């Protein structure tokens, strides 16, 4: 379909700004692995400190890229399926709020006033602009939900007996999860942290802040993941040359995510004080619940791919695999998606380890953790996001991709690097190697008395993986901006591949309504979080004053 200039402009900006920021984000990813391996043994490189770089890496790659993309992809999906553009005024408002948030936070981070990592646990204090920036980014990303819900309700009135398209349902569910979970972090930032960082309140309850953060923090990972899931269900079967195995399976998956995404947050706090073992165990059970939709997805997508492979002429038990478009220049999205899925197999399995209550003690906060989540957020999520960003830009601008052959190879390069990196990190984690630590200064420095020779091979592997991923990432950025600077040669259209369903089940009203599921979500959240918050309230002692990252004496005492 044709879309207006203003619509295109917002989408292009929301796609291109995070890709430009990725230069900084990916550079710092590489640098982490170099510092950690002991190849450099210093606190900073090129005037950027290790922990400052780690903060930039996390915030840009995991918060800015994902949020901007989810909003842009949501606009595009809703517009394309309803054949009606989303409200331009609200699009611009949302964009400017998010961008101003990013600018404020970026200034704080680059100035070295917010090296608190992307979890910003108090009582390490960041500059108020860092918190304000995070709040603006979040509030900006709320606005589209209002507009999309309005369009959805109108469409529903006009088409009461038609199934809601799976992609639309996914987009709405994702942003409902996002809205509800970010309420907690908005409260944390606006009510607890900003007044405290300004010095208006003396102390902050650290345990409460952590619990509120993880109310948001785990749902956040599904907010990253669901746009990728939407693509796997509604786009991948089509471009593989087949159909989606089951439409209903997709709906069940989405609704299970809606129910279970938020209430599982406590499983990030297994090692925390103030929360009882019972509440933690319950959180573990719920986390197993949220593993079910991913198992369903693994099967449904694999079955869809097998269907496609056989339709393309593949025979035998594995013959269908050969017939998939692995290296098809015109169909490059397939390479991005399939590579993400390969990584997600390992990401999912390691995730279940983390969720498994007492098993978590083995790996909590070790290098295993980044090893795990790089195979989710930097696997299927990242590859689907960058692949789709390039696709949408090329289609909507009417330009041809630069270096199309190389473009299909990038995801394979990325997977190779990621598997090596994550293997090194996971192995190191099992040997007790901590995450988020400038290891080169002490543990990986042969001159230090803390030197750990058993972490040498693991960090070396991680660095090798990091170098390969850096090359893949930079090649993508070159291709993306190379494409932007090309001349328009095709007609510019908004077009997303749409898969038909192989089993297109009849509309079941229960699986086409949001209300009962949203109510269930709230009930499960209350069951999980009322006890957790009561625990925190009962077992917490005095709050903590503000600390700068470089001084064991609180800020107040220094003045």
């Amino acid at each position, binding site marked *: 379909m044709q879309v207006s200039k203003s619509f295109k402009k917002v989408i292009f900006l929301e796609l291109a700004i995070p890709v430009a920021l990725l230069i900084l984000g990916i550079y710092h990813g590489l640098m982490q692995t170099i510092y950690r391996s002991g190849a450099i043994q210093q606190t900073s490189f090129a005037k950027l400190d290790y922990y400052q770089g780690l903060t930039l890496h996390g915030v840009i790659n995991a918060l800015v890229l994902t949020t901007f993309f989810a909003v842009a992809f949501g606009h595009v999906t809703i517009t394309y399926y309803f054949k009606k553009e989303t409200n331009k005024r609200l699009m611009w408002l949302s964009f400017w709020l998010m961008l101003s948030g990013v600018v404020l936070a970026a200034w704080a981070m680059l100035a070295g006033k917010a090296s608190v990592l992307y979890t910003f*646990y108090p009582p390490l204090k960041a500059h108020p602009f860092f918190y304000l920036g995070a709040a603006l980014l979040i509030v900006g990303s709320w606005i589209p939900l209002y507009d999309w819900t309005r369009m959805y309700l109108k469409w529903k009135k006009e088409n009461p007996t038609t199934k809601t398209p799976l992609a639309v349902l996914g987009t709405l569910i994702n942003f409902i999860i996002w809205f509800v979970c970010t309420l907690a972090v908005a409260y944390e930032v606006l009510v607890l942290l900003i007044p405290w960082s300004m010095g208006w309140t003396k102390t902050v309850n650290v345990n409460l802040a952590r619990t509120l953060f993880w109310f948001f923090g785990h749902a956040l990972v599904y907010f990253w993941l669901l746009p990728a899931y939407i693509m796997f269900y509604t786009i991948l079967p089509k471009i593989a040359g087949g159909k989606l195995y089951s439409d209903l399976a997709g709906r069940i998956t989405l609704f299970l995510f809606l129910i279970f995404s938020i209430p599982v947050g406590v499983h990030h706090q297994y090692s*925390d004080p103030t929360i009882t073992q019972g509440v933690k165990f319950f959180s573990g059970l719920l986390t197993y619940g949220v593993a079910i939709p991913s198992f369903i997805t693994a099967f449904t997508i694999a079955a869809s791919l097998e269907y496609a492979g056989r339709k393309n002429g593949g025979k035998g038990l594995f013959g269908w695999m050969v017939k998939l478009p692995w290296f098809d220049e015109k169909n490059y999205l397939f390479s991005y998606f399939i590579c993400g899925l390969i990584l997600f197999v390992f990401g999912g399995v390691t995730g279940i380890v983390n969720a498994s*209550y007492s098993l978590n003690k083995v790996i909590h906060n070790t290098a295993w953790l980044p090893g795990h989540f790089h195979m989710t957020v930097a696997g299927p999520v990242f590859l689907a996001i960058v692949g789709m960003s390039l696709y949408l830009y090329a289609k909507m601008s009417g330009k041809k991709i630069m270096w199309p052959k190389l473009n299909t190879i990038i995801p394979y390069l990325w997977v190779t690097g990621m598997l090596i990196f994550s293997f090194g990190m996971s192995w190191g984690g099992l040997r007790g190697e*901590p995450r988020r630590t400038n290891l080169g200064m*002490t543990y990986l420095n042969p001159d230090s008395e803390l030197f750990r020779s058993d972490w040498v091979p693991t960090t070396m592997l991680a660095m090798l993986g990091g170098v390969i991923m850096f090359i893949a990432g930079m090649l993508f950025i070159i291709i993306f901006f190379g494409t932007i600077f090309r001349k328009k040669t095709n007609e510019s259209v908004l077009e997303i591949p749409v898969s038909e369903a192989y*089993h297109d089940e009849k509309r079941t009203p229960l*699986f086409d309504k949001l209300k009962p599921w949203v109510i269930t979500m709230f009930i499960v959240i209350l069951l999980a979080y009322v006890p957790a918050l009561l*625990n925190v309230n009962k077992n917490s002692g005095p709050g903590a004053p503000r600390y700068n990252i470089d001084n064991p004496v609180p800020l107040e005492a220094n003045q």
Partner: protein
Amino acid sequence: MKIDKIEKRVIITAMCMMGLFVFSLLYAKTKYKSNVPECLPYDKAYTNPKINQIDDKTYQVFSVASMWKFEPAEIYIPVGSEVDFYLTSKDVVHGFNIAEKDVNMMAVSGAINKTTVKFEKPGVYNIVCHEYCGVGHQNMHAQVIVNYPKAK
């Protein structure tokens, strides 16, 4: 609601598998006492670092994390000791990981964390801070020394 037969089987299999996992966790919890840290109400008494010997094989350690050290920094105990670690932080959030013994806790200001562990083999066990706690994080380290002659 009608769903494909194979799809249904997959859903049931996935649920059975998660059920098996839950059973394993409960089994480990009852049989091997494998559990996550205990939660205690805040008490100021735990904010003074010390080592209490309860009897010849039972110890209490009040470990206090601060930027960028653990107190006590060296914990000498005999082989076969059972140690209750009580952990808190004086300032920002710290981590407390004895990888060989799967002791894994967060040290949070205004809260007390607790876990119990038995040291059956002699040796030096490293305690590594595994939560970012400021510029000196990578130096934050302590040791449990089992069955070594007392240095001081």
